[in-house]
């Protein structure tokens, strides 16, 4: 990230989100560390991908960045506005900021209101955030957006059930773009779609990014999609960032054992490719009761006593950052 001329759209510093799980009569209350000390920067026109398995905190990160949740510690700098536990924004300011960060959800069948027409779905953000616009102006904007996202003008009056999964995802993208955001959080945008539709949506996203200079926070568990889309990658495990850097560096020379295992577990669509698979023992530990030291240590094959006693920090090595005492080369 040597881009010094341009200020980042998002700068996160030690961002954490912990949830208190209320204890019952006989159990003590506990804290789920859904996200711990995540730091990153996101620039306009770039894609930062967040990868990891379920429960690794990638969706919590999306919720914090879109201001659905407030961080419990750390600082989130959105275009110069600081969001932190000690700096509560006024409702007005937050409303404006929210317009510049929009989200597209995974399931296009669950994220569109079945009782609203497409036109109404697209105009709703304007109705709330741009009260000065007149109805005809809203309609003009909605129709422009339909065209931009590859939908047809006659779709304006139709209802979500009349569309296929791919088209619905286009509608969800169109809705997210209605307020001219500069940052789009894409939470597994293509995992609910069939392969032949997936490429259409990915192309649309690439195209929109080039045209509008959007910054994407791209959350996915599909590494081949991430490799295709991302400029930078952040690998998460149990709420912590274990490795981050440029997509090129992370994919070609992963240093953290978990990243290596993840890459080796991903099936490659080439039967002639002989892959040496790293066998990970066991499963993801419960975030309620994470292992001491490095969160990955119970499944790691390079574990030594130090890994069990203290947690490694994310440190710069050549090319990218790794949180491991014994990074692989």
């Amino acid at each position, binding site marked *: 990230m040597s881009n010094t001329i341009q200020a980042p759209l998002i700068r996160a510093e030690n961002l954490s989100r912990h949830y208190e799980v209320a204890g019952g009569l006989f159990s003590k209350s506990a804290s789920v560390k859904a996200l711990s000390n995540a730091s990153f920067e996101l620039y306009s026109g770039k894609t930062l991908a967040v990868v990891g398995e379920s429960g690794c905190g990638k969706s919590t990160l999306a919720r914090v960045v879109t201001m659905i949740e407030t961080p419990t510690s750390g600082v989130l700098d959105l275009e110069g506005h600081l969001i932190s536990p000690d700096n509560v924004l006024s409702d007005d300011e937050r409303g404006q900021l929210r317009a510049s960060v929009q989200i597209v959800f995974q399931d296009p069948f669950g994220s569109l209101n079945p009782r609203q027409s497409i036109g109404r779905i697209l105009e709703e953000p304007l109705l709330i955030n741009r009260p000065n616009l007149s109805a005809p102006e809203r309609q003009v904007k909605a129709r422009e957006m339909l065209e931009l996202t590859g939908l047809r003008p006659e779709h304006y009056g139709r209802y979500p059930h009349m569309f296929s999964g791919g088209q619905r995802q286009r509608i969800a993208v169109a809705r997210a773009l209605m307020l001219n955001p500069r940052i789009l959080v894409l939470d597994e945008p293509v995992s609910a779609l*069939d392969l032949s*539709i997936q490429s259409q949506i990915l192309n649309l996203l690439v195209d929109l990014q080039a045209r509008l200079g959007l910054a994407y926070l791209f959350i996915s568990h599909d590494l081949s999609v991430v490799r295709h889309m991302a400029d930078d990658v952040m690998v998460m495990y149990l709420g912590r960032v274990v490795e981050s850097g440029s997509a090129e560096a992370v994919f070609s020379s992963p240093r953290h054992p978990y990243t290596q295992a993840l890459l080796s577990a991903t099936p490659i669509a080439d039967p002639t490719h002989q892959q040496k698979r790293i*066998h990970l023992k066991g499963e993801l530990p419960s975030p309620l009761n994470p292992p001491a030291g490095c969160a990955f240590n119970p499944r790691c094959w390079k574990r030594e006593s130090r890994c069990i006693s203290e947690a490694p920090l994310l440190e710069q090595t050549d090319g990218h950052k790794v949180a491991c005492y014994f990074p692989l080369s």
Partner: protein
Amino acid sequence: MPLLDVRNLSVEFKTADGQFRAVDRVDVQVDVGDVLAIVGESGSGKSVSMLAVMGLLPWTATVSADAIEFDGEDLMGIGASRRRAIVGRDMAMIFQEPMSSLNPCFTIGFQIREALKAHLSLSRSQRQARAIELLEQVGLPEPERRLKAYPHQLSGGMSQRVMIAMAIACKPRLLIADEPTTALDVTIQAQILELLLELQQSTGMALVLITHDMGVVAETAQRVSVQYAGQKVEEQSVRSLFADAHHPYTHALLSALPERAHSKKLPSIPGVVPGQFDRPSGCLFSPRCAFADERCHSIPPTPKAAEYGHARCHYPLVDGVPGAQAQDPL
């Protein structure tokens, strides 16, 4: 003689708007020791065709076929009790969502022993011993303790291991796995696929893997059958399919994979899979096909010879371009 021989299988569903053909004249042959992958997008009929073989479709379905034979026995003419004796013992199936396939009211042990009780004449203690052995075989630690666990106490990967243990309880000769890893994380997916292949090799059973993931196909299958909108459009060995796909649909599908892309813009297939009301009259893929001509739009193609991967296409591709007009293999 193949272990499973399905010829000309069609399945129609009675819907409010008339008959809907979910599976359209599909052939499936599986030999002993085979690993066959059936790939296709949602709505391609890949699950329905296998459910028809297992006899698990609801009454709204009409199954018709020239033959559905398992180990020489005709599965279409047999009665319910004979079918129950075969299904679950000689052929077994595991499903996509392990969490919802297990009964939440009973322990894992009860559910595994139930399968043994239904099909084998073992004593109570023998069944318990076999259940422990099965959990060991599928790699669950502390099997004795796990047998007393309820499904909600297990993770997705562990539940799928239990499902596999139940499926292989009676040493089936054919195991059908319907999207066994779709609901699981990648590192767990790798473990489960490895387990399935290991079991397949050690017991010599045939494995039919239904999936939509081309990566899974490439890493596990020997032979691949590609389905589109209810029809089988191509069948080849896995290496030749990935090297040279003959049907335009398979070819387009493979080039739409992000990992095979050469540029930021992915080659994509326009349009969507035809549904109940917009089935084209000619080739089903013709509205989305880059090579379709007048003939494709009007005349439904028939499967071509084996050297063209049995492609259901008038102009099967060779090295990505339509080859010389292939003759019908009659």
